[in-house]
């Protein structure tokens, strides 16, 4: 049975698309047949992050409006087998998405895929609500800062009320928290919220923690999801995240200040 997972956050720029790309890549690398759908109609980015922007012919809106078949619009990833991308339209607006159209596409994809990852646009408007509406699970991406945490809180509220699962009253959506851009040093100095603060406010199962990393920016600009960079801290952290999504239990990494810490703990600790 396919798992439909929405990657969402409320706030923009926290790493939704990066995370959607990295997680889908990770799943495909483990042999899971995965499709990642860009719901950010009008501001599409996923194709850039996945490095397939030159191969986009048809998009999600074309399929919904019957101008192209689903298989014509799906782009096969060049690096990993089992990974497909369904890009968003850059020229339409979000009103071009319809609930019935999205439902139909997801139904068809469910027959073929193990994982359907929906990359939500920022905000809480139509595009974001459609991205989450049919989801079985949600990955809420949060940065260690107050505004991001509050927006994630808002999204968690919507997940519990504005989704098909909520409306039908069955099992609720399974919620996961993914903290990105975590910088242990800046947490120690009080510039960033701590992991414990975020977990306490949001009280949601922690799926993973991605450290702030140069590898992420490099990966985005090169169009290679950071999961491929197995030597980088962020790449390993996403790999751990994927493992947890598949049911493994792994200890958390990269949330503490690294070794050089003895001195910085003596001096940095008192600043807190």
């Amino acid at each position, binding site marked *: 049975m396919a798992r439909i997972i929405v990657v969402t956050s409320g706030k923009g720029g926290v790493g939704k698309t990066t995370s959607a790309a990295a997680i889908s890549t990770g799943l495909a690398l483990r042999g899971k047949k995965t499709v990642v759908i860009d719901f950010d109609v009008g501001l599409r980015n996923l194709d850039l992050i996945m490095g397939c922007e030159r191969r986009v012919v048809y998009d999600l809106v074309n399929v919904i409006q019957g101008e192209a078949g689903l298989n014509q619009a799906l782009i096969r990833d060049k690096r990993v087998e089992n990974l497909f991308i369904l890009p968003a339209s850059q020229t339409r607006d979000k*009103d071009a998405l319809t609930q019935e159209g999205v439902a139909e596409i997801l139904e068809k994809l469910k027959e073929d895929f193990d994982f359907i990852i929906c990359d939500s646009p920022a905000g809480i408007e139509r595009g974001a609500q459609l991205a989450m509406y049919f989801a079985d699970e949600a990955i809420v991406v949060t940065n260690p800062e107050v505004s991001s945490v*509050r*927006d994630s*809180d*808002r999204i*968690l*509220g*919507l997940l*519990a*009320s504005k989704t098909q699962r909520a409306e039908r009253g069955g099992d609720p959506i399974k919620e996961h928290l993914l903290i990105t851009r975590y910088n242990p040093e800046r947490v120690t100095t009080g510039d960033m919220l701590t992991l414990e603060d975020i977990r*306490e*406010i*949001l*009280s949601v199962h922690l799926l993973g923690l991605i450290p702030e990393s140069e590898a992420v920016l490099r990966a985005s600009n090169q169009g290679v999801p950071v999961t491929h960079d197995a030597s980088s801290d962020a790449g390993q952290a996403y790999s751990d995240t994927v493992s947890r999504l598949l049911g493994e239990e792994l200890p958390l990494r990269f949330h503490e200040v690294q070794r050089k810490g003895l001195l910085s703990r003596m001096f940095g600790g008192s600043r807190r």
Partner: protein
Amino acid sequence: MSLNADSANVAFTFKGGMLPMTVMELTSADPEHIRRQLAGKLSQSPAFFQHTPVVLSVEKLDEPHLALERICAVCRDHKLLPVAVRGGSEPVRQSAWALGLGWFAPVEESRARTLESVSRTPEPAGDEASSVSAAAPGEVDRRAATRLFRGTVRSGQQVSASDGDLIVIGAVNAGAEVLAAGSIHVYGALRGRALAGIHGNTHAGIYCRELEAELLSVAGNYKRMEDIDSQLLGCAAEVHFTKEQLEIKPLG
């Protein structure tokens, strides 16, 4: 979508909303009887009678014709503002419309609530008010008006108990709002807005495990986070309306 097409040029938008509303469940159709009881209530809790909108429920009355105009006049004399009628026969519905009031279909017995639960102060026995409420057939247990919410009340969410107390087992996060006609109990951190006694019950209180509230209000008397003594922030606390102001003190 087309509704929003030229949003710059619209005079209004329709929005759905759930507003707390007091239902006045009539068990007598005699305007004088109602007047006497209202006069008694007015002296007990004057704060409640501030042009409070009420819905007149006539479901419990078995009278095809009501002196609706006179009943409304009695209400207005006591600073209650009838806005609609619930239940009743076809002539009642017609006269409600003629008086410019709305009409609601009757609700099932099981969901009926009484105005009594708004006031938590027990009325002295033998008093006219309590004798009427005791006589009300099928009255729901007062405790049934208490609302229990399990989980986190998240930013943008509003949880209200429009007839009684509200108990939240979990946190109320920043940007969330909890409201109750009675008291509010939060077994967790209170980071959002809490408004107790929304119909004017000054005896209502707010209790929480960890006070970080954006706004606290009892019967319309409020304090912002800025006004709260910073020593109390982060502590278990209780909030009451005493000596004409909000008093916040450590719990226990």
